[in-house]
């Protein structure tokens, strides 16, 4: 069946054959790629289980992050209508009730991440406070009537969820859509609460017992900024009329700043609200937590290489601020790694490693031998071992297992030392190695960090730290190292503890140093002559340089040197390690291509420089311009770049035919006629209409037979 038709644009194909299961299909896709299909099943399973682990982990992290916010909100909600519960009729109370309790939730600009927050919020509220929650989005509510319709629909649905027994009357209400009004909402609310009131003695459902007698109705405006002001105003004004009958609570999701409320609502309306502000965690902190929990941990065997991480962080910082997208990118990395790296079977937990290594096929062994890092490793070995590694599969397997285990250990140590180093660098002025641990991480992965200038300067700065800071840092490092799972750090911890005790012993000797400084001070105060002052200062400086260091200073040097040695030992970049290709994913180009594509650039390259894609000798030409043998569309494009706002089609056509005839038949005399060849004309038409489709030109009515150019600066 063809999908070309002049009468129809949609074609459905329904095969009669029984569909296969999804997972099998996916495993098949894994195997479909060229070569190395034996482990695809296993590879796929590993990939899936790993991703599922990561996913659940991220979800847990996000839940934890939101917990504080949710707790605050819940306490706000329970406070907001406490008077309503008591059913006070006092006049002042009633006046106060004219104000609708409102929570303004400042969530940050990454609007797409909010969905998750709101979902967890509504779940949380549903479990703890009230069954009556309505989530409204601006795109569903162009008018006040749509808003009420949506609101009532959602509220009555949750009523159905809670009590699925007798709901004829409310179904009737929701069917009669034109009759959505506050009074019907109140009627519904009264009937619902009465029912639960009467039921409370004979408690059947445990869920409703957690609610109060008259639970508040929570209306969440997901994206407050995009609501029409009129709709919001009307809704607030109308509902404030009924606030004494209907315990309403509003929650505004705000992306920008709380000021937006006052900008959207005039004073007369915002005075009807009793607003409390809640701030969610900023997305940068969110990301830090994610990186901390996903990357700087030994929980997952899969790791990101430096370039890839840099790309992901750049997309986050410069494009969207969206943690969701970061995780999506991470997912793509996982998939890509397992798809493209045949040895990724070995990218598993340590427990499974032995079994997998021993079951490697000969092909896979060859794959290992082909790894560049392994080749480098082999070259360093003595010749006997070299031969064994290159010829004996079993020996190779043993070696591989050992190396991989080493790699895991390396990573553990790396993370711990990285954290220690971060403790030091994050308190230095101007943060030469970056403020966040992710910056440090990238720097360490990129190359040997101790060779960089930044590291040099940060060590210099660290040598000037004062004692109390140094002590607290050392204590933090001890804690970090103790909590790490690596066993190598016993000695290090001892050493650090020793430093700490030495610092304590220094207390006594501090006086002496003070004396010295005081004496020099006195000397300075004596002479007021500028020349002499300068002279003494110079002398002082010299004396200080030549002077024997104090004990504290020596100790400080010692500490810094020790840290330096730790860094040199443990923070070796991952791609210096053998077999890092198995665990580390480092093809950043793929990631950038798929997540952060530049369609305009691609089009531009194709039009300007067709030999980039078409590897044909004929297209080669010097000077960066295109040859006259390029595809028609390229020539037409090139010609149109020469024009102003409007392009005369006749001129264009002539220019085109000149170029094309020159290219095709160098010495033909068809050109003697003024008219253009039919085929060339047709080709021109095709090229022009293609340019139109691509959005470079559009027909113009300004002048006959002219088209308007739509791009500027395309050359």
């Amino acid at each position, binding site marked *: 069946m063809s999908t070309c038709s*002049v009468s129809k644009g949609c*074609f459905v194909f329904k095969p009669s054959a029984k*569909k296969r299961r999804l997972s099998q299909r996916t495993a098949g*896709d894994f195997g*479909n790629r060229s070569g190395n299909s034996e482990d695809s099943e296993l590879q796929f399973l590993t990939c899936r289980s790993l991703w599922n682990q990561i996913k659940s982990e991220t979800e847990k992290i996000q839940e934890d992050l939101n917990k504080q916010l949710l707790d605050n909100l819940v306490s706000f909600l329970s406070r907001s209508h406490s008077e309503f519960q008591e059913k006070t009729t006092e006049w002042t109370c009633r006046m106060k009730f004219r104000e609708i309790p409102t929570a303004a939730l400042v969530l940050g600009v990454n609007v797409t991440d909010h969905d998750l927050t709101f979902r967890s919020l509504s779940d949380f509220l549903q479990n703890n406070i009230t069954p009556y929650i309505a989530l409204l989005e601006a795109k569903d509510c162009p008018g006040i009537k749509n808003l009420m319709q949506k609101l009532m629909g959602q509220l009555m649905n949750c009523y159905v969820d809670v009590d699925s027994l007798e709901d004829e009357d409310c179904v009737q209400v929701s069917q009669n859509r034109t009759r959505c009004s506050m009074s019907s909402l109140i009627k519904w609310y009264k009937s619902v609460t009465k029912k639960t009131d009467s039921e409370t003695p004979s408690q059947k459902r445990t869920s409703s017992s957690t609610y109060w007698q008259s639970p508040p109705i929570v209306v969440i405006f997901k994206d407050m900024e995009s609501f029409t002001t009129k709709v919001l105003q*009307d809704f607030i004004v109308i509902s404030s009329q009924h606030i004494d009958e209907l315990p309403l609570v509003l929650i505004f999701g705000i992306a920008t700043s709380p000021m937006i409320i006052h900008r959207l609502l005039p004073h007369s309306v915002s005075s009807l609200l009793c607003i409390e502000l809640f701030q969610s965690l900023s997305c940068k902190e969110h990301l830090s937590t994610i990186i901390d929990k996903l990357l700087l941990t030994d929980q997952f065997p899969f790791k990101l290489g430096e370039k890839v991480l840099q790309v992901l962080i750049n997309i986050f910082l410069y494009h969207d601020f*969206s943690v969701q997208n970061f995780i999506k990118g991470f997912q793509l990395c996982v998939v890509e790694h397992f798809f493209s790296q045949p040895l990724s079977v070995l990218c598993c937990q340590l427990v499974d490693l032995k079994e997998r290594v021993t079951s490697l096929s000969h092909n896979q062994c060859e794959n290992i031998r082909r790894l560049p890092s392994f080749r480098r490793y082999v070259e360093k070995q003595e010749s006997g071992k070299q031969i064994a590694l290159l010829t004996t599969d079993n020996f190779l397997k043993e070696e591989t297992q050992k190396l991989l285990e080493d790699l895991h250990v390396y990573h553990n140590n790396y993370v711990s030392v990285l954290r220690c180093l971060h403790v030091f660098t994050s308190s230095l002025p101007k943060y030469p190695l970056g403020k966040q641990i992710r910056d440090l991480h990238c720097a360490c992965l990129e190359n040997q960090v101790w060779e960089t200038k930044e590291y040099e300067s940060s060590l210099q700065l660290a040598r000037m730290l004062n004692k109390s800071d140094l002590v607290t840092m050392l204590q933090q490092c001890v804690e970090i190292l103790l909590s790490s799972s690596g066993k190598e750090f016993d000695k290090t911890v001892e050493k650090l503890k020793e430093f700490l005790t030495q610092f304590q012993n220094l207390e006594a000797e501090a006086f002496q140093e003070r004396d010295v400084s005081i004496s020099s001070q006195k000397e300075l105060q004596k002479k007021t002559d500028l020349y002499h002052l300068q002279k003494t200062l110079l002398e002082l400086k010299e004396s200080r340089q030549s002077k024997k260091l104090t004990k504290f200073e020596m100790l400080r040097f010692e500490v810094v040197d020790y840290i330096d040695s730790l860094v040199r030992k443990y923070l070796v970049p991952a791609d210096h390690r053998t077999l890092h290709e198995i665990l580390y994913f480092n093809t950043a180009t793929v990631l950038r291509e798929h997540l952060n594509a530049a369609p305009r650039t691609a089009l531009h390259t194709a039009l300007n420089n067709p030999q980039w894609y078409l590897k044909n000798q004929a297209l080669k030409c010097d000077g960066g311009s295109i040859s006259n043998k390029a595809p028609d569309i390229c020539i037409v494009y090139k010609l149109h770049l020469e024009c102003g706002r409007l392009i005369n089609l006749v001129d264009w056509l002539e220019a085109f035919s000149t170029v094309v005839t020159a290219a095709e038949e160098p010495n033909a005399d068809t050109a*003697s006629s003024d008219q253009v060849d039919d085929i060339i004309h047709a080709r021109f*038409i095709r090229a022009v209409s293609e340019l139109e489709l*691509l959005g470079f030109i559009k027909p113009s009515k300004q002048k006959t037979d002219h088209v308007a150019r739509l791009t500027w600066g395309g050359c």
Partner: protein
Amino acid sequence: MLGSERGVVEEWLSEFKALPESQISSYAATLHRKKPLVPALYKVIQDPNNELLEPVCHQLFELYRSSEVRLKRFTLQFLPELIWVYLRLTASRDRQSNGCIEALLLGIYNLEIADKDGNNKVLSFTIPSLSKPSIYHEPSTIGSMALTEGALSQHDLIRVVYSDLHPQRETFTAQNRFEVLSFLMLCYNSAIVYMPASSYQSLCTMGSRLCVSGFPRQQEKRWKEPCGRVVLDPDFMVQLLTGVYYAIYNGQWELGQEVLEDIIYRAQLELYSQPLLVANAMKNSLPFDAPDVSQEGQKVLKVEVTPTVPRISRSAITTASIRRHRWRREGMKARKDKAQLSISAKTFVKKLENISDNKAQEILEEKKYIAALGICVQDPMGNGSNVSGGDIYSFQTPRRSSKMAELASELAQTPERSVASDHSKCPEKTAKPPQSSKHSSSNKVQPMSKKKEFVSTTPYRLRKRLAASDSHLESESEYSASCSEEEDEEDQQEVSTVLSGQKTSGKTKAASTPHPRNSLAKKTKEEKTSNLAEEYFEAHSSSKVLTSDRTLQKLRKRRLSQETLHDLLKRAPLPYAADIKELNQQHESMFSKWMLQLHLGFNIVLYGLGSKHDLLENFRTSLLHDSVHLVVNGYFPGITVRSILNSITEEVLDHTGTFRSPLDQLEFITKRFKEDSSLELYVLIHSLDSQMLRGERSQQILAQLSSLPGVFLIASIDHINAPLMWDQAKLSLYNWLWYETTTFSPYVEETSYENSLLVKQSGSLALSSLTHVLHSLTPNARGIFRLLAQYQLEKKDNPSYPGLSFQDFYQQCREAFLVNSDLTLRAQLTEFRDHKLIRTKRGPDGVEYLLIPVDVSTLTDFLENEDEDV
């Protein structure tokens, strides 16, 4: 209606006509003493079929128009009743019988919007500022100045409420109906103190009837007149409430409360916040029992709560309001002055045009004008120069500056020179293509640039223009012939160089012209990259276009039809087929990866130059043959989101039902896919960025569709700005993975739908549909259509042809014995309309115009075909 009442009314009607001018005021004084008159008039108004209605309305309008204010009020007291009757009749669609009432209401409105001088009235009210003394308070007594004016103005408490300018209305339409009625109610409210009790009563009944008619609450009412729902406007309801508020405290306690309840009921149903707010405030402030109304004639309450009453604006004059008033008047004055200025400028332009005809000897005179009007000259010059190039030339130079006079002799040579260059240029132009191609034959690499120099004149014009000062750009006629424009350009070039101070002689310049031009062009090209933005604005600054005026008409075969184009292209071999094939194979090796990533929850979008249709087709045939999938041709001109959703619900989900909106449909699909996790659907969309699908709503729906767990979307985009369709929210729904698939294959399918440039709009599709439909109709119907088509063809030269008015058409059809009544004609037209053969639209005067929505050539073809058939 009783005879006596009729008599009273008739007497009243005749009485006023006989009244001399001098006795009007005494008549007005006695009018309210005629007790039986008012009830009789109410009866007349309530009965739309009464033959007295029209004279009564006319008489009421006469009274209103008279200078006597008491007569005005006499008319105003019937206003609530009139509005009720009018709205009831409008709601019942019995438009014919309310003509005179409509006219009366409009008459009153049009009288009221203007003041005595005929200017538009602006009703304004300033809330007195607490910090400024007024007749109500002394600021020093307030004490703390926490409530400063600045602080108050932040809370917009000080605001001048203008009843904004009301335009004059000729007819009632659905849009302006309530604007007019609200204004009328405002007039009524401003005179409400003088109204008799009967008017309050009628106001209250009007209010409750308007609010309740057609709603269940009507059953509770005593009156049972059947009436449909009346549409109401919140502003009108607020005005109504203002009147009702007064009525409640002045004798209509019970009725007033009832109408208040009714208004609240209606406002709640309609979700009108403003009337709700006002009505609830009124309700909550009501005392427990009726105020004492025993003293007849004493008005208990003055309406001062509503800011819209103009009486208050008169009474509450504060310094601020005075200042504002003065300011406004001054502003008006200034505006008038400006208008006068512009008028004088216009007359000046006219004069200038005359001058330009009379040529140079009047230049001195003209200079005087320039001196007199100073700065104004520059602009009108540009507008006024609707003259030929030569005139502009001789005209402009002396104007530019007086010291340029010495150059006049030099410039006088230019006409000759330009003529000469003219001659040399024109043949050269025709001979250009052969020349350049011959040239290129000798040197293969060069032809591109060579040709550019000769043929594509456009860029040089642009560049030249960039170099030239833009003062004379607009002075060029748009449709001058190519050569004359050339010459024109040349002259201007000259002028600009002369102006820029190069005082070389004309001859040397004429000789050296080509070189400076080229160097100029080169220089601009160098600069080009540096200031693209400037260039952009430069190019878009004027509406003038500097391109040659050649049209396709000069070519032998200007437009090809779709078929011939297709055939021709088939004959032309596709260059680099091998390379393209290799490229495609590269892309095809990704298929399994796409499959995998689709399954993992990503969606795939393909971009890059070249049609991706075949690639996707290959993907479909090779991998999707045993799964359910949907192919959408986005480039299909008739594609809509609705049709996509329909094919999913109907063909994939086997659902036979209709949906109210695409959103409902989407909801249904979502539900089905969430319920049944085994459901899988692959969606392939060619050209997701096509005209029909690029709208915000369509993209939103497609994005939501693609985010469903069982739906796998793979789409292609072509337009350079396609990614702009998606904001963050949509992007996250789509969850794209981008793949660059540059194929270099021609967009055959995508450009095949007769919408591309240069392709002859053969209209064969429209034509065949026309003939098919018409063949199924009766001969008479065909005749009717022919008539319309012929008429339209006759008028084809008139670009603003609105269509044939129905009445004229009916007349013509009758004359041709095609129909015998306008009903038959309407029936036929409905048939046409159903088949989309004609389109009707209403003109500005409310007349229905008929139009056949096909282009002229198709229509001509159609008529020819018809003739053959007959």
